[in-house]
C-alpha cells in the first residue's frame, strides 16, 4: 500500500516535496476524469431508472426500484411505503390506491384494515435495483432493432468498401510511377478541404439523380473514398520494399495478384487502424444520413435517436437506454483499441 502511495506521489526534481504545480496537476487530472466519464456514467445510471424515478427531483445517484408485495384479494402486487402515523410511529404498509392528496394503505399482514394517509406522510420503500424494461421494451416494441440493423449494415459495408477502394488507390499511388500521379494526389488533398456542409444542396441533387435517395447505399457510397484513408495507407505502403513486387513479377504474378497476395497482407496493421477510424466515423455519422433518409424504416440509430428525442412527448426512459446501446461499440473501441487511434492521430494529425 505504501509503495503504491509512493509511486503515485513520486515527484521529479523537487526532492520529494510537493510543489504547487503537482497539486494543480492532480486536481486537473482527477477533475478531468470526473468531467469526462461522469456524464456517460450518469447516463448509464439514469437509463436504469424507471419513468417515475426519472421524473423525481432531486434525482438519486443510483437507480432504485420500488418494493412491492402481493396481498390476498389484490390481483396486482402493491407498492410498499413507510408510513408515519399520527402518533409519530412508522409502519411499512402497502398502497391500495391514491385518491387526491391521500392514499389508502393496508397492512400486508392484516389486509382487512384500511388507513387513509396524506401522501406527504409516506415514503416509498426502495432498494437499489434496475429497471430492465427500459432495455427490453425498445427491442420488442419500437423500430429500434431495425435502426440497429441499419447502423450495423451501413458501418460494416462502408468500412469494407472504404478499405478496398482506399487500399487500391493507395497501392497505385505508392507503387507505380505514371503520368498524372501528382495531379491525382492533388485532387485527393483538395477533397480533404471540402466539408459536407458546403456541398450539402448539390450533393442531395446528385444522390437523387443516381437513384440513391432513401436507400442505405446513398448513405454508404459518398463516404467510402476518404482522403485520410488513402494517405494513411499510402504512407504505410511506401515502406514496403519494391523488391518483393519485382520478385513476384518474375514469377508471372499479375498486378492484381501483387495487390492482394503481397500488399494487402503486409498492410494489415494500417488497414486495422483505418478500419477502426471508419467504424467510428460511420457509426457516428449524422448530418448526411439525416438528409438522405426520410423513411423511418431506413433510419440509422443516430437518426432514430434524434427523432425520438425531438418528439413532443419525450420518453426519456427509453431514449436513455437506447443512447447507452448506441454508445456500446464506441466504448468497446475505446477500451480495447484506443491506443491505435491516439497514435494514429498523434502521428498523422488526422481525424
Amino acid at each position, binding site marked *: 500500500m505504501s509503495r503504491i502511495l509512493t*509511486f503515485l506521489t513520486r515527484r*521529479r526534481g523537487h526532492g520529494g516535496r510537493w510543489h504547487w504545480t503537482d497539486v*494543480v496537476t492532480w486536481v486537473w*487530472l482527477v477533475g*478531468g476524469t470526473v468531467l*469526462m466519464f461522469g456524464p456517460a456514467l*450518469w*447516463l448509464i445510471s439514469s437509463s436504469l431508472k424507471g419513468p417515475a424515478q*426519472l421524473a423525481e*427531483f*432531486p*434525482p438519486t445517484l443510483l437507480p432504485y426500484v420500488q418494493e412491492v408485495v402481493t396481498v390476498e384479494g389484490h390481483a396486482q402486487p402493491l407498492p410498499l411505503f413507510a408510513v408515519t402515523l399520527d402518533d409519530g410511529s412508522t409502519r411499512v404498509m402497502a398502497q391500495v390506491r391514491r385518491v387526491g392528496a391521500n392514499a389508502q394503505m393496508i397492512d400486508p399482514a392484516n389486509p382487512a384494515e384500511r388507513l387513509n394517509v396524506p401522501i406527504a406522510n409516506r415514503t416509498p420503500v426502495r432498494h437499489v435495483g434496475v429497471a430492465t424494461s427500459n432495455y427490453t421494451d425498445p427491442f420488442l416494441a419500437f423500430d429500434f432493432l431495425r435502426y440497429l440493423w441499419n447502423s450495423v449494415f451501413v458501418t460494416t459495408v462502408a468500412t469494407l468498401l472504404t*478499405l*478496398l477502394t482506399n487500399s487500391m488507390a493507395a497501392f497505385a*499511388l505508392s507503387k507505380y510511377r505514371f503520368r498524372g500521379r501528382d495531379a*491525382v494526389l492533388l485532387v*485527393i488533398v483538395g*477533397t480533404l*478541404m471540402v*466539408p459536407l456542409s*458546403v*456541398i*450539402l*444542396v*448539390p*450533393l*442531395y*441533387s*446528385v444522390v437523387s439523380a*443516381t437513384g440513391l435517395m432513401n436507400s442505405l447505399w446513398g448513405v454508404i*457510397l459518398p463516404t467510402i*473514398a476518404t482522403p485520410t484513408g488513402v494517405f494513411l495507407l499510402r504512407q504505410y505502403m511506401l515502406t514496403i520494399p519494391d523488391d518483393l513486387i519485382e520478385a513476384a513479377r518474375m514469377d508471372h504474378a*499479375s498486378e*492484381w495478384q501483387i495487390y*492482394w497476395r503481397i500488399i*494487402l*497482407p503486409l*498492410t*494489415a*496493421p494500417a*488497414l*486495422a487502424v483505418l*478500419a477502426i477510424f471508419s467504424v467510428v466515423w460511420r457509426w457516428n455519422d*449524422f*448530418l448526411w444520413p*439525416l438528409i438522405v433518409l426520410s423513411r423511418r424504416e431506413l433510419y440509422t440509430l443516430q437518426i432514430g*435517436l*434524434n427523432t425520438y*428525442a*425531438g418528439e413532443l412527448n419525450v420518453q426519456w426512459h427509453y431514449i436513455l437506454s437506447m*443512447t447507452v446501446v*448506441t*454508445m456500446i461499440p464506441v466504448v468497446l*473501441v*475505446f477500451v480495447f*483499441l484506443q*491506443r491505435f*487511434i491516439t497514435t494514429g492521430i*498523434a502521428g498523422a*494529425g488526422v481525424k
Partner: protein
Amino acid sequence: MAGIATLLGRAVTSPLVLIARVLDPVLRLWQRRTGTGGMIALFLLPNMAVFGVFVIIPLILNFAYSLTGGAEILLGDRRYVGPEQYGRLLDCRNYLEPLSCREDQFWTAVRNTTIFVTFQVSLMVTVSMITALILNRNIAGRGFFRAVFFFPVLLSPVVVGLIWRWILQRDGLLNLIVTTFGGNPVVWLNDRFYAFAAAVGVSTWAHMGFFTLILLAGLQAIPKDLYEAAEMDATPPARVFWRITLPLLGPNLAVVLVLALIKGVQIFDEAYVLTGGGPGTATMFMTQYIYEVGFASILRNPGLAAAASILMGAVLVVLTLVQLGLSKRAERARER
C-alpha cells in the same frame, strides 16, 4: 497489445483478400487486354469515381444552384436568376444588426457562429494546452489519463447532445448540484445565454481530447536536452515555458488554432441535438441555417442555401490555406 493488433489486422484483411480472390480471373483478363496502365487506372477508378461524383460534381453544381431560384430541389426544374441570391443574402442596412437585414436568419447565424467560434476556440486551445502540458509531465498513469480526455472524442454527436440535454434538463444533474449548494434550479437550455454557453462548453468537452493529442505530440518532440540544460542553469519554470516550450510548440499551436477554427465554423451536429438552434434562434449556426433553408423549412430555398454555403466555403478555404501553410512551417521546424 500486439495480439489485438495482429488479430484485428487479420480480421479486416481476410474479407478483402476474399473479395480480391473472387475478382482475380476477371482482372487477369483485364491486364492481358490493357496492360499495366489499364491496371493502374482500374486501381484508381473506384476512389476517383466517388470523389468525382460525390465531391467534385457537387462542388461545381453548387455554383449553378446559387444562381437559381425557387423551391424545387432538382437542378433541372429550377430557373436561372443570376446573382439574385447573393444580393438577397448581402442586402443589409447594418451588418451588425441582423434584424435590419433582408435575410435576418442568415445574419443571425453569421453572428452566432462568429461569437461561438471566438469563445469556443479560445476555450478549446486553452484547455487542451493546459491538459497537454500536464500530460507531458512525469506523472503516474499517464497513458490512462491521456485516454480519459480522449473518451468523448469517440462519442457520436447525437450521444453527446443527448447526454448533456439530460444533465441540463430541469430535473437534471446540474440542478441537483446547484440546489445542493443553495442555488435555485434553472431550465438551462431555455435560457438564451446558458444555452449558448452550453453549446460552447459541450463542443469543447467533446473535441478537446483530439487537440490535446496533437499538442502533446508536439510537446514530446521538443528535445529533452533543452530542458536538462535549463534545469542545470536553475531556470525558473515560468521562464522555461516562455523561452523553450512556447516558441518550440508555436507551429503546432498555430495548426491547432486554425484546425479548431475550421471545425468551429462548421459546428452543427451536437449543438443541433442539444438545443435545436433554440431558444428562438439563439444557438442557430451556419450549417444549421444551410440545412434548414436547403431542406427542412417549409419556405425552403436551395439556391439561397447554396449561396450561403459558398460564402461559408470561401471562409473555410482561406482558413485551410492558412492551415496548410502553417503545417508546412511546423514540419520544416521539426526537421530542423
